[in-house]
């Protein structure tokens, strides 16, 4: 534990007075909270519009009702995870652009300590965002539904730690691209290409029993699409629970990517 703290301290000094980091974090956090709190309005609006034209009545979706709110909000928050990925890419590629990784290694940081610092930061960021989503969901739920402790602390609360795992795995993939490519611009482009297009093509082309183990695909199975009444009305029923296989796949990716990054730093001139 002491080792982790001493590896995290330099990381804290690096971001503490880094304006770019805090501005981007602020924008991201504000957007996230704003999005989560305006969902009901957006959805009600669109279902009202649809109702005007549809012959079939579409019910208003109770978005913030416990315990569904835990899943609804973590699912939506997942769409914004590209922003913390940018933050992590910037923080890692900075070390190469400013050549400060080299300076830290010759000053006596071991590659292990350096990695503990960076992965620790990724972990803390994932947990903080998941907590922010959790607090938002809690508040939104309290405002719009009757507080019922059995409903609030239902098993669906586990979507908050699962969201942290989603972010952690996703950010580790982004970090791997950053360590591999070293430059911010090219890393962002390559990461977007891979996560948005390339992996989908791969999943499509590969047999399903292999494709489902690809990282972005596995991350997508952590929080299933909320099974709202509207979906049920259309006769679609999604799996309501997190796939345990996806959880294990994500943990496996975290370990694999950590080892890959470690090997990359060990085998390469700084």
């Amino acid at each position, binding site marked *: 534990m002491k080792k982790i703290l001493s590896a995290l301290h*330099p990381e804290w000094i*690096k971001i503490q*007075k880094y304006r770019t980091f805090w501005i981007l974090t602020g924008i991201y956090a504000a957007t996230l909270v704003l999005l989560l709190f305006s969902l009901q309005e957006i959805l009600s609006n669109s279902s009202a519009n649809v109702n005007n034209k549809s012959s079939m009545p579409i019910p208003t979706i109770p978005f913030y009702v416990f315990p569904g709110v835990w899943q609804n909000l973590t699912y939506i928050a997942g769409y914004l995870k590209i922003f913390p990925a940018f933050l992590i890419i910037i923080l890692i590629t*900075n070390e190469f652009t400013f050549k400060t990784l080299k300076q830290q290694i*010759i*000053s*006596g940081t071991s590659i292990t300590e350096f990695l503990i610092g960076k992965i620790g930061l990724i972990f803390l960021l994932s947990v903080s965002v998941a907590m922010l989503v959790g607090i938002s969901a809690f508040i939104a739920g309290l405002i719009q539904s009757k507080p019922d402790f059995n409903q609030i602390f239902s098993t669906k609360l586990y979507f908050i730690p699962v969201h942290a795992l989603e972010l952690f795995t996703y950010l580790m993939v982004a970090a791997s691209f950053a360590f591999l490519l070293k430059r911010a611009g090219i890393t962002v482009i390559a990461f977007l290409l891979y996560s948005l297009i390339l992996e989908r093509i791969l999943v499509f082309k590969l047999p399903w029993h292999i494709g489902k183990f690809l990282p972005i695909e596995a991350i997508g199975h952590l929080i299933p699409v909320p099974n709202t009444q509207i979906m049920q009305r259309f006769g679609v029923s999604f799996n309501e629970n997190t796939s345990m296989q996806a959880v294990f796949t994500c943990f496996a990716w975290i370990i694999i990517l950590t080892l890959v990054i470690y090997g990359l730093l060990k085998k390469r*001139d700084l």
Partner: protein
Amino acid sequence: MEENVLEIENLSKSYGKVKAVSGLSLTISKGQVFGLLGPNGSGKTTTLGIVLGATLPQSGDFRWFGKSLSSKSLKRIGAILEHPNFYPYLSATDNLRIIAQIRNVQESDTDRVLRMTGLFDRRKHHFQTYSFGMKQRLAIASAMLGNPEVLILDEPTNGLDPGGIAEIRDLITHIASEGATIVLASHLLDEVQKVCSHVAVLQRGEKLFSGNVEEVLSNTETLLIASDDLIKLEQAIINYPDYLSHTINNGIIELKTNGVCHPDQVNQYLSNQDIFCSHLSLRRKTLESYFLELTGSKSASSSK
């Protein structure tokens, strides 16, 4: 026996077809101020990068304090390598705090090294606002954090003005007098001659020479003698016990002796033979002319 701080054995590293370091062996002992000399691209920075763990060698071995490289041994070494590398958006103090944290040094030590390098008044300014000379000073300051046993300085006076160069030279001499071992890579020979006790000369990744600076320079000493009777003088000189060789240049005999040259003894010897000098002076080549001779440059004969 002297304690070896750094032993390098048969180190090699190529970048594609270019051999940056080729079969280099060196030993640096405790307390030495060791100059690593060579023109640009001779492999100085690559060598230092390897021994500091920033560059991987292709073959060969090296040991710090008798052991292979570890982050523990690196904490005993303060180093600047190539350009100063810091976070541009952080102040000098914050940049040094990061290094202090890594090296397990008290954060208060940052003020001491900032004072020593003359940056204390600008310590709260962002690194990106610094001039190149100030960035270089900050690099030197970070290397000195926690008073390391060994200082590795790669071109430390790069980008400094003459006043700054003199200050850094005094600083190096001061640190050396406190017993630290210093490795100084430079292409500025005058610099090395002024501060170093030992020197190794590199060219195209190979070691041309290494040894004690005093010895190098005393081997190049020439005694310039003139007298009214040049023929008699020449005859006497050839019979001088430590005679090695001589040349005559513009009526002045240039004498080389075995071992260290003693003008007083030569003078005594000549006057015993009733030869009185009209000119007697000791000329010592600079490291620069010696270096140019070694590296085979044509301007080798020009000595200051």
